C-alpha cells in the first residue's frame, strides 16, 4: 500500500491501493444498545478497545488537521455542529436543530445544545462556537479556511444561538460543518494552550484525549462529562498505527486488536472464513480514476493552455480519443482482477449512496474495444496511441496499472506505466508535468466536495486543466441551490457533460472494509466512513 499516510500518508489524495477512503452507505454493523450485531450477549460496560489504523493521524487540532485518518480519532473526541446518520442525512450533533437559512441564502442561524460541557468542564455556548469557527477561519496555516471561505462573519444572537453570515449562498456549508470545520474546541483549553492545542486537544465527545506516542498509538478514555455518557460502554479506545495491511490483519487474527481499519481485499476471504471475526463493508463516497492532463500547461490554478510538445498527445487534444480509452477499459474486470470483486465500478464523481445521485449520474460508457478502435480510426489517429501514466509505487497500484495497460492495448493504446513516489507525484501533477495520473479522492458527504475543486476552471485540485464554461455554470448553480431535487438534476446534467469531455476517467469506488472481533459489538461505520465507537463495547461472555 501506499502512503499515508499516508499512505497516507498524507493521505488523502489517494493513489490506489490501500490508501483509502471515506465511505458511505449504510449497512453496517449495527448500532449499540440491544442490537450488538454479533448475535451474542449484551454489551457489558468497561474494557479497552484496540483499533488498528492504517496511517498515523497528523496533528490532532481540528483547525490544522489534514489527514483523513485523523478524522477517525476526532470522531471519538471532537463532536461537530452536525453529523451524518446511517443514510447520509445531515443531523444535528452539537447544534440543537438544523440550520435556518435566510431567504436570500446569505445567512444561517444555528441553535446550540444547552446541556453540553467540554471535557475540561467548560460549558458549551454560542460564544465557544464563535471562537472555534473564527479560529478555523483565521488561524495562520488553518486547513479549514478554504472550506469556510463562504463565511463572512459569525455573530452571537443569544447565549445559545449563532448566526453565520455568508458572502454568497453556499448550500454545502451544513455538510462542511459536519466535518472538522464544525468541530468546537474548549475556549479555556484554546486560551491555555494556543498553538499547542493539538498536543492535548479538549472538545466534546464520548471520549477524551489521554495520550499519544508518535507513530505508535493514540489513547482516548471515556469522558464522564459527556452529555450522553450513560450510553458509552468502553473505558478506553487505543488506536494503534499499523501501516502494513498484512500486519494489521495478523494482529486482528491473533487478537492483539479487536478492530482493523482497511482490510485488504485479498484478506477478505480469510477473514470471512473465521467464526470469531466479521467484516463490515460499506460503499465509499470517493472514487479512483485516471486524471488526464488536457490543459494544465502552466500549473494548477493557472489559466489552462496548450500543452508543450512532450506532453501533448491525441488523448489531450481530442475528447473522442479519451472516449475511446474509456471504452477500452472493462471496469468490472478490473475490479475482479485487481480487487477480487471487493470494490464497485464507478463512472462519475457522485457515489450512488449519495442522496444527490440519480440514474443519469450513474450511467456508464459501454466497454467495447472494437468500437474504441473504430473511434480512433474515424478520428484519424494513428494507433497505438502512446500515453504515459503516473501510478503509485505499491504492489496494488502496479497491478491496477498493468490491468489498465492490458485492456487499453486492445483498444489501440500503448500505456507506459510510470511508478512515482506519492509526494513527488502530487508535485508533478500540480505542475502539469504528466500525461495521465491514476489517482483518486476520499470523498465528501456533499457531492460539491467531489466536484468543484476538481472540475471548475482553475480550481485548486483541477490538475487536468479542465475548463468548460458550461460545467462551471452547472457547478456554481448546484452549490447555490438549496433544493435537493434541483441539485440532483444539475449534477445529472454535469455528469452527461463530463461523459463527453472526460477530464477524468472514473474507474471504481473503494469500499470501506473493517474487520471486527466477535467479542465486540456496536461498532458503526457509516456515512462518512469513519469508525464510530460511541456505543461499542465488549459482549458478555
Amino acid at each position: 500500500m501506499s502512503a499515508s499516510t499516508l499512505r497516507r500518508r498524507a493521505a488523502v489524495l489517494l493513489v490506489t491501493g490501500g490508501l483509502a477512503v471515506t465511505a458511505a452507505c449504510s449497512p453496517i454493523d449495527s448500532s449499540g444498545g440491544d442490537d450488538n450485531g454479533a448475535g451474542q450477549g449484551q454489551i457489558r460496560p468497561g474494557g479497552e478497545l484496540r483499533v488498528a489504523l492504517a496511517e498515523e493521524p497528523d496533528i490532532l487540532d481540528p483547525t490544522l488537521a489534514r489527514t483523513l485518518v485523523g478524522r477517525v480519532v476526532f470522531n471519538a473526541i471532537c463532536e461537530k455542529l452536525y453529523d451524518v446518520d446511517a443514510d447520509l442525512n445531515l443531523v444535528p450533533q452539537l447544534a440543537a436543530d438544523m440550520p435556518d437559512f435566510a431567504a436570500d441564502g446569505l445567512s444561517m442561524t444555528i441553535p446550540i445544545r444547552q446541556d453540553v460541557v467540554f471535557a475540561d468542564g467548560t460549558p458549551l455556548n454560542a460564544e465557544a462556537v464563535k471562537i472555534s469557527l473564527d479560529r478555523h477561519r483565521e488561524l495562520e496555516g488553518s486547513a479549514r479556511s478554504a472550506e469556510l471561505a463562504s463565511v463572512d462573519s459569525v455573530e452571537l444572537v443569544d447565549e445559545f444561538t449563532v448566526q453565520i453570515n455568508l458572502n454568497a449562498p453556499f448550500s454545502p456549508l451544513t455538510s462542511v460543518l459536519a466535518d472538522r470545520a464544525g468541530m468546537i474546541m474548549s475556549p479555556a483549553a484554546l486560551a491555555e494552550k494556543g498553538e499547542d492545542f493539538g498536543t492535548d486537544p479538549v472538545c466534546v465527545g464520548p471520549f477524551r484525549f489521554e495520550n499519544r506516542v508518535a507513530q505508535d498509538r493514540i489513547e482516548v478514555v471515556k469522558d464522564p462529562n459527556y452529555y450522553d455518557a450513560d450510553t458509552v460502554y468502553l473505558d478506553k479506545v487505543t488506536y494503534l498505527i499499523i501501516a502494513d495491511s498484512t500486519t494489521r490483519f495478523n494482529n486482528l487474527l491473533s487478537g492483539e486488536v479487536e478492530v482493523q481499519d482497511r482490510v485488504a481485499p485479498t484478506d477478505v476471504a480469510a477473514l470471512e472464513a473465521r467464526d470469531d471475526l466479521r467484516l463490515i463493508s460499506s460503499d465509499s463516497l470517493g472514487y479512483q480514476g485516471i486524471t488526464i492532463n488536457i490543459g494544465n500547461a502552466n500549473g494548477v490554478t493557472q489559466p489552462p493552455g496548450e500543452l508543450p510538445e512532450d506532453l501533448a498527445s491525441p488523448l489531450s487534444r481530442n475528447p473522442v480519443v479519451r472516449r475511446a480509452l474509456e471504452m477500452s477499459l472493462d471496469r468490472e474486470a478490473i475490479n475482479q482482477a485487481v480487487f477480487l470483486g471487493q470494490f464497485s465500478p464507478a463512472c462519475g464523481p457522485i457515489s450512488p449512496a449519495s442522496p444527490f445521485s440519480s440514474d443519469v449520474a450513474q450511467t456508464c460508457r459501454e466497454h467495447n474495444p472494437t468500437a474504441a478502435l473504430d473511434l480512433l480510426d474515424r478520428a484519424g489517429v494513428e494507433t497505438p496511441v502512446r500515453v504515459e501514466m503516473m501510478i503509485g509505487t505499491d504492489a496494488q497500484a502496479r497491478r491496477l496499472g498493468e490491468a489498465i495497460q492490458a485492456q487499453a492495448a486492445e483498444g489501440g493504446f500503448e500505456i507506459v506505466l510510470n511508478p512515482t513516489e506519492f509526494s513527488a507525484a502530487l508535485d508533478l501533477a500540480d505542475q502539469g508535468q504528466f500525461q495521465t495520473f491514476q489517482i483518486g479522492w476520499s470523498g465528501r458527504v456533499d457531492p460539491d466536495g467531489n466536484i468543484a475543486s476538481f472540475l471548475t476552471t482553475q480550481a485548486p485540485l483541477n490538475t487536468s486543466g479542465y475548463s468548460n464554461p458550461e460545467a462551471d455554470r452547472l457547478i456554481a448553480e448546484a452549490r447555490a441551490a438549496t433544493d435537493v431535487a434541483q441539485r440532483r438534476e444539475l449534477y445529472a446534467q454535469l455528469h452527461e457533460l463530463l461523459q463527453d469531455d472526460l477530464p477524468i476517467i472514473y474507474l471504481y469506488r473503494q469500499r470501506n472494509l473493517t474487520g471486527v472481533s466477535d467479542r465486540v459489538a456496536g461498532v458503526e461505520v457509516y456515512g462518512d466512513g469513519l469508525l464510530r465507537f460511541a456505543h461499542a463495547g465488549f459482549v458478555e461472555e
Partner: protein
Amino acid sequence: MGRYLLRRLVESAVTLVLATMVVFAGVRALPGDPARTLAGEEADPAAIAAIREKYGLDQPLPVQYYRYVENLLHGDMGRSLRTGLPVTETIAAALPVTLQLAVFSLVVAVLIGVGAGVVAAVRRRGPAEWGANAVALLGLSVPNFWLGLMMILVFAIAFPVLPASGFVSVFEDPVESFRHLLMPALVLGTGLAAVVMRQTRSAMLEALSADYVRTARAKGLSQAQVVLGHALRNSLIVVTTIVGLQLGALISGAVVTEQIFVLPGFGKLTIDAVFTRDYPMIQGVVLVTAAGYIVINLLVDLLYSVIDPRIRVGGGDL
C-alpha cells in the same frame, strides 16, 4: 592514547557538521514539496503558502540552515511538520525501542553465529559443518519480512504463545519485554548470525592452523582450552569488527522488522518522515544516525586494544 582520542573526537565533530549540511541540502533536493504533501486534500494555494510561511519554508535556504543550526545548538531539533510533536522527544521515544531490539538481535546473532562458526571450524567436513553452513545459507537468503510473517503465523496465530506485535521496555517489565522482542530479534538476528558464523569459521580455521595453537596442543592443553582459550579469542577481533559495523546496519535494517512487529522504533520513524517530507524529522533522524555510527566506530576501535593488547590505538610501536 589521549592524543588519538582527541583527534578522533575532532574528526567526529567535523563529520557531524558536514552531516548536517548534507542532510539539510539532501532532503531539500528530494522531489516533492513538504507544504503540498502536508496540505493533503486541502491543497488550496493559499493554504500551501500559509504552511510554507508557518514553518519558515519560504525563507532562503541559508537562512533556513542558520536557524536550524542555531536551534540545534540549543538542543532543539524543531517540531515535526506532520504531528506537531517535538522531534527530540519523538526520537528519544523511538531510539530506545530500536536499540533494545538491536542489542537483543546482536545477542541472538553472536550466540548463534559464534557457536555455529566454532563448531563448523572444529568439526570440519562433517554433518556439523554442513548443518552450520545450511543455517548460514538460510539466514542469508530468507528475507526478513517472510520469516517475520511466518513466525507470527506460527507462534502468534496458530499456537498463540507470543504476542504478534507491540513493545514493552526491558526496564518496565523484563519478562514481557522478552516475549515481545523474541520474534523480532530472531528475525533481525538470523541474517547477522549467518555473517558472524562465516567470519568466525574462517578466522577459527586460520587460528587453528597457526603455530601457537600447535604449541598449545603440544603443551598438553585440552581441546576446549585450545579452541576457546586460544583460537577463539584470536578470532574474535574479526568478529568484533563485523559486529560493530553491523550494529549500525541493524539499526537502519530494523525498518522492515519494526513494520512487521509494529515496534515504534527508529527505522519506522525514518521511513515515515521521508515519505511525508517531514524535513525537521528527517534531519533529526539522520543526524542521530550519523552520530551513532561515529560513536560505534570509535568504540570498536577502542575495543580492539582490549581484546588484543598487541594493538595500540594511535601508537606506532607494535
